[in-house]
Structure formats: C-alpha cells, structure tokens
C-alpha cells in the first residue's frame, strides 16, 4: 500500500550549511537551505565556483560542513560514526571522469562497492552482471576500462553506482567528458534508471540543456541558492 507520508517525507534536509576553505578565505557555501524528497530528480546548476560541487561533496558525505546541518531521513549526518558506512549503504556516485579502477574489468569495477554488502560471492557476480546488462554493457563484462569508449565507461560507472542499491544517486557532470550523442544517451539512461528504480537523483551540471532533463532545477551562485524551480510535477513513489 502506498504511503503518502513516505512520499512527502523529506529525504535530505540541508539546514543553513556553510563551508569555507583556507581558513575562511574562500567561502564556498554561505548558508544553503534545501529540502529534497524521496524519488526526486533534481539538477543543481551553476557556473564554476558557484559552490555546486562543494554542495555535492557535502551531500555525498565526502566532506563535512563548517556549520549548519545535513539530515538524512531526519538523522543528522554528523551523528553517523562512520560516513564511509553511510556512503556504502545509501549513496551511489557517478563522476565526470568516470573514475573506474584501471586494473579491474568492467565486471570487477561493479563488484568493488559490493565488498561492503552482506551477499555471497555468486550473488555478487550475478547482481553485477545484471547491472551491466541493464546499462547495455552485458557484452563487455570482462573488458578493461582502457578498451572501452567514454560513453561505455560512464555506463559501467552507472552500473557501479547502483551496485549497493543506493537510495540516492549523485552525478557530478556525468556528461562533461562526452560528445553530444553519447551525452544524450547517458542522460536517457539516467532517466530510465530513475524511472525504473525510483531512487533520488541529484545531478550537478553547468549545462542548462542537461539541467532541463530534471524535474527540479536548483540554481546556485556565489555559494547560495538563487533559484529553485519545479519544472515537472514530482511523482511520488508508488
């Protein structure tokens, strides 16, 4: 039975978050407030230096704010003893430069996050192969990253980001290193992943065309949210 309260419950709450670097000389975020709900498809847009990447690092629990609070399902991230555990359980990452491990095959790269999951070895193998199949890389399981094209590498990276069944996918300029055609295909793939899996998607980009594929566009400038537009109605998870 669908639970309306779950649909409307905030997944991530960002509460007056500030982040500065170099002893306060660089103010990357100057008080950001945001609420992101379960299943949303959000684009964070802004030019370089706007603070969008810093915000993504904080949302990805790769970094901690100087002040303010980020809550996941109501619980403050600062209360987690090990943020690595939090990332392992709830987050999937997709990076601009793919960041595949060069010594591992496509399949092995997808297996890497599963080290922290309580699954048996055959189970992991099966899941990894299925994920690669789902992103259209079923025919390239045992290829090394250097033998793959940029688009293919990003597909592997997307499969990897799903390996731990995360509730949130964070994508940092996922098409930044790709040509237009590949970029469009990757954006379609992300869209369909979101459609099938219903996880929350947070996309960081400087490209308005990419941002437009999202349901909600948050625009940042000088470390602050300057605009927050709902372009499509947010469909609740059913």
């Amino acid at each position: 039975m669908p639970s309306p309260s779950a649909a409307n419950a905030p997944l991530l709450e960002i509460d007056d978050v500030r982040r500065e670097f170099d002893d306060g000389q660089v103010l990357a975020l100057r008080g950001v407030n945001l609420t992101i709900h379960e299943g949303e498809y959000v684009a964070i847009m802004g030019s370089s230096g706007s603070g969008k990447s810093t915000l993504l690092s904080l949302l990805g629990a790769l970094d901690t704010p100087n002040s303010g609070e980020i809550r996941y399902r109501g619980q403050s991230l600062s209360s987690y003893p090990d943020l690595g555990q939090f990332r392992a359980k709830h987050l999937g990452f997709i990076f601009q430069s793919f960041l595949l491990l060069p010594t591992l095959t496509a399949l092995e790269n997808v297996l890497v996050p599963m080290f922290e999951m309580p699954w048996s070895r055959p189970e992991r193998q099966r899941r990894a192969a299925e994920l690669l199949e789902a992103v259209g890389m079923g025919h390239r399981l045992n290829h090394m990253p250097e033998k793959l094209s940029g688009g293919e590498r990003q597909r592997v990276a997307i499969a990897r980001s799903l390996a731990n069944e995360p509730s949130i996918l964070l994508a940092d300029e996922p098409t930044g290193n790709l040509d237009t055609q590949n970029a469009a295909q990757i954006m379609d793939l992300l869209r369909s992943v979101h459609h099938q899996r219903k996880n929350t998607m947070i996309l960081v980009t400087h490209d308005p065309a990419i941002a437009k594929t999202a349901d909600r566009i948050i625009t940042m400038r000088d470390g602050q949210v300057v605009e927050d537009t709902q372009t499509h109605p947010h469909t609740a998870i059913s």
Partner: protein
Amino acid sequence: MTLLQLTLKNLSRRRVRTALTIMGIGLGIGAVVALLGLAWGLEASWTDAYKVRKTDLVVRRSGGGLIAQPFPDSASEQVAQIPGVSQVASLLTEVLSIESVPMMVVSGRQWQSFLWENLKIVSGRLPTSADEKVVVLGTLAAEMLEKKPGDKITIEIDEFEVVGIADGGAVVENGAIMISLPLLQGVMQKDKMVNFINVRLDPKSRDPHTVSQVIQQHIPGCRVDIAEEVLSQSDGVKTFKAMNWGTSIIALLVGTFGVMNTMFMSVFERTREIGILLALGWKRSRILRMILLESVTLCFAAGIVGIIAGIALLKILTLMPWMQGRIEPQITIELLSLALGLAIAVGVASGLYPALHCTRINPSLAIRQV
C-alpha cells in the same frame, strides 16, 4: 573477486618493481636461511654426536677450546661412583693431520664402553680386542682418506689396519677415526690420560644439573657440560650464532625498508584510486587490510624465493672442500617456518606505515587528483 585477487592485480601492474622488491627481501630471507642453517647445523652436528652416543654429561678439564687438555683416566672411576650415574666412558680425542688430510679427529674410545654401540658397521667389522692394532673409520673419514677395510693407515709414527667403516649417525662421528683408547694413548704417549668422560645418567635419577654439580665437587678442576647445552655454552658458538643473527637482522632491516619504499611509491601512485574506494564506501579498515595484504603477499613470495636461494646456497657451501666433515647445515621445518614467519613479519612491519597513511586519505580531495 576477493581482496587477495585485487591484491595480486595491484602487484602485477608494476611487474619489474614487484620482482625487484621480491629479489631484495628474498635475498635477506635467503641470508637468514643460509646463516641460521649453518649456525643450527654447527650446533646440531655436535649435539647429534652426543645424542647418538646417548651421552647425558661430558666431563672435561676446565679451560681450553673444543679439544680439551688431558687428565688422568682415574677420574672416570670416581665419576662412576657418583649416585645417579649409570655408565661412564672415557675418551682421548686428538685432532691430527693424517696422511694427506690436513686435519682429522681421532677418537680413542674406552674399550667395551657404550661409545662403540652407536657405530653401525657399513663394511668390515669392529675391533675384536682393545689391543688389536686396528681402527674403524667413519664413512666421511674413509672417503676423505680414500681407504677401505684391509688398507693400512699411518697415525703419527704407527701403522694400523683399517678393519671397518662405520656410520656413527652424526657428522662429527662420521668424520672421525675410531680407535681403542689404549692404542691412541700409546701413539700419543699419553699413557692413562683422557680428555673427555662421557656420562650416562640413570633414567630415574636426579636431573643432570644436580649430578653435574656433584661431579664438580668431587673432581676439582673439572668442568661438566650437559650434552644438550654443550655447544650453546661455548663462546665460539655463541659468537658465531650472534654474528649470524646480527647479519640476518641487518639483511632483513634493509629488506624491510626496501619493501616500505615500494609500498609507499605504490600507494602514492594510487592515492586517487584509494580515494575512489573510500568514496564508494569502503571501510578504512578494508583499505588497511588491502595494503597490508599487498606487502605481506610481496614478502611471502620473497620468503619462498629466499628459502630456495638459501637452500641452494647451503647446498653449494656443503660441496666446498673446507666444509666437508665440519658442519652439516640443518634445513629443518623449523628453519623454513621461521624464514616464512620472518618474511610475513617484514611484510606487516613494512606495510603498516604506508597502510595507515592510506586510511588518512581524504576521498573528496583524492578523487580530484589527476
């Protein structure tokens, strides 16, 4: 995919560096195997001699080196009277240049004592009486002197017939000429003199330390060695062992720094990858284990290489003419496990610091590195 498979992949990406590092620490381990094999062999070849003779205590005059100064044989009767002593056998041991061999042990053994019991005749026979002018050669001695039963042998001014070749069960025995005590006393003009008394204890008796103290009280100026400890008490052997251990430790230290250097280079190169693993949620403890496993695997491989190199070195040493009949190197399970154990310890010691360094990597900075 397991952590070990991942480790092997990481090590195989810089094959030359990995191979050189394995060679470096492998040589260290090889040195340990060869040096300790020699030291243990030296000890074992002498204690073996007492083991095969089933000797518990050895009485000698205090002072002097491995070949002791002579004293009157009458002392052996006194020793035999001491409670706890079951049998005694006196010996006159000389190191002489025999025919074309520069140095050889000639062991004059009390006739009808237990010192003749451990000799297994390979060919020929044992003497039939104390004054039959014959000798028995250890197998190695026969080889070095090129003698067989029936040949004549010159010991100092006297000539003897070789009647038998015997396996004494220990290198020291096999490298020696066995002759009855009165005959050697005659040759050396040391009538009624001996330089060792071998003592067997009553199995139910007091412990060897107590009996040895009683003997020392009864016979002034004597020294009693407990057969099992006789060599570990000798200063020469202590020095030899200390030197071998010292050299081994230096070799291992050099190896440890070599591996540490390799591991540091390897983790510095992979800072970004380690950042990725952290970003993907790997626990810091898993990163630590991965790096440690790499250095331990490296050193384990080096341990195998080192053991092979060490055994080869010992075999070559054994073939050297000046080694023959002196030391039989000991290649035992204990030695090999010790070598592997040391290799693994070096792996842990050299991997720990680089591994701890990795756990302090900040993933968000590391993944931005190009």
